[in-house]
């Protein structure tokens, strides 16, 4: 059975390069091409390819954010393609993850592809590796600027600055944006780590607020606070979280 491959790169010429080289390889079928991270997430979920050629630097959602959006546990075998990214390369080495450095020739491409074929057959090992890779590259990456959310049957690319507040819901978080909200499969802790710490503060075990949307802090019972958002939402902030926000006064 053919390996079903997806090509993700923002440069048309780089996609063409992969397509040309793959045409000469046997047992591989290209099921799609994506020019940005958002459509890559959709394609991975919709087409469930066996192998993804994933460019690391891309507009809007980069390669790592694609994995975050899809979920490390749902990622197929991935061959990273990058021109240069010192932090990423180091992480790839540490986690023995295959990557291709641009520019590459037929020989290097072929070798990398052979290794990737092995991973396609061992897909159950992928989630743990992806999760540890993400954990590793996190510190060196800037905060999330955009996040991919599902709304009914389509996807939206949300600017993180538009999020007013975030609420925990079991294994999900609910992002509240201008009168509507979106569920994202993510934990509160992990979400907080990926957001701009100057803008987003955790005020409760189960809520994070965007400081730009906070209108008023009102003392409440027992030293707790009531946090009033500009859209009228009222949240409570236990005194144990007071340090998060008290310096703003």
């Amino acid at each position, binding site marked *: 059975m053919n390996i079903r491959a997806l090509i993700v790169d923002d440069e048309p*010429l*780089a996609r063409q390069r992969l397509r040309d080289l793959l045409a000469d390889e046997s047992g591989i079928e290209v099921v799609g091409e994506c020019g940005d991270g958002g459509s890559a997430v959709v394609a991975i979920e919709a087409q469930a390819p066996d192998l993804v050629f994933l460019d690391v630097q891309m507009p809007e959602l980069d390669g790592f954010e694609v994995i975050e959006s899809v979920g490390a546990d749902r990622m197929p075998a991935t061959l990273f393609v990058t*021109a*240069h990214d010192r932090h990423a390369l180091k992480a790839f080495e540490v986690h023995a993850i295959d990557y291709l450095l641009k520019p590459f020739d037929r020989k290097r491409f072929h070798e990398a592809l052979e290794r990737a074929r092995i991973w396609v057959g061992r897909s159950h090992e992928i989630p743990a590796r992806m999760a540890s890779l993400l954990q590793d590259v996190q510190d060196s990456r800037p905060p999330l600027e955009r996040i991919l959310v599902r709304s009914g049957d389509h996807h939206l690319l949300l600017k993180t600055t538009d999020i007013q507040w975030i609420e925990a819901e079991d294994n999900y978080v609910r992002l509240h944006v201008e009168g509507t909200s979106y569920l994202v499969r993510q934990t509160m802790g992990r979400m907080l780590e990926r957001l701009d710490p100057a803008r987003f503060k955790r005020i409760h075990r189960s809520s994070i607020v965007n400081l730009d949307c906070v209108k008023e802090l009102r003392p409440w019972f027992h030293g707790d606070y009531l946090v009033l958002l500009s859209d009228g939402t009222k949240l409570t902030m236990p005194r144990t979280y007071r340090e998060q926000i008290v310096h703003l006064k």
Partner: protein
Amino acid sequence: MKGPVFAPLERVFTPPSIPETLAGPSIGRVGTKRRFWWTFALAWAVGVVYFTSQDFAYLPLQRPHWRHLLALNSIQVTVWAVLVLPALAFLRRWPLDGPGRLKRWAAFAPLTLFLVTFGIWGAFVISLGSEGKPPFSGADYLARFGRFLTLYFHFYFLTFLSVLFAYHANLWRHRFRDRALLASQLETKLFQAQNQALRMQLQPHFLFNTLHSIATLMHTDVESADRMVTRLGDLLRLSLERSGEQEISLGQELAFLGAYLEIEHIRFKDRLRIAIEVPEPLKNALLPTFILQPLVENALKHGFSKRSQGGTVAIRARAEGNSLRLEVEDDGDGPPLRHEEGVGLRSVQDRLHLLYGGLARFSFDRLPGRGTLASMTLPLRLAHQPADGSA
């Protein structure tokens, strides 16, 4: 692409290392106001003591009353001190060197003659008062003053001029020091800009992606591969060759940016649109070397790279009276600037300020949903010969 036409940069126009706009009066400040007045008061006191001692030595046998002499000389020196002030102000505003010095001398000479004559008249009036003589007729008054004037004019004129020239020399000293400082600051900023420009081409991400694109094109579109290799060569050569110049012509700057933009254009095919709107005569206008480069890089990064559907980067120039206005605009909706990009913009502003003082303006506006507009105005000066890049 209706991009710029590229021409090799063989002859490099060399502008003066520091433009003449620097010679303005704002540079030659003599310390602070406070320091000036302290020096002035000290000079006054020295003058009083000096002239009193002269009188004392001149009239030893008559044993004049020393308090009387001191009071008389205080008044005299005060009159001179007041008269020297307008001359000092003149020198401060219009130093006797630099462009237009003939006109300045022409105004300075009569001013000085008038002040000295006026001062001697003051001394004359004081001497009359001190002698306690009764008033006399107009003709007699004039004749006496004429004698007084011929007696004292040469001495006072020389003294007066010495004070003025001492002040002028001090102005020079300070201006020289300020300019040396300014020149070294400018050098640092230019060096930073060069570094940044070099980094743009040698940015590993840019370089490797370009090479990768070339590898792809070689199999399918040899013509484009050819163009890309050539432009990459141009870019590296231009940034290596262009060392040490504070200013270059707009045509040269565009040749450099054009090579960069053309590579990006081939890489991203139809997604990148480039609009260069520069009237032909303005390609001779001078601007600080590499000043547009960080702005174009920002426009690409924010207006374009972050948008998968592509965008337009526009570079515009126009003359507004005696000023040159330059704009770099994109139509994207990128994220806010990161810290190091803000630093790049600030360095643009710093260089403009150092080179042109208050004559240059810089602004950077993010128009929500409509991209970014970076614009600057600077004094419009043309290179004396047509620059090569403007072909």
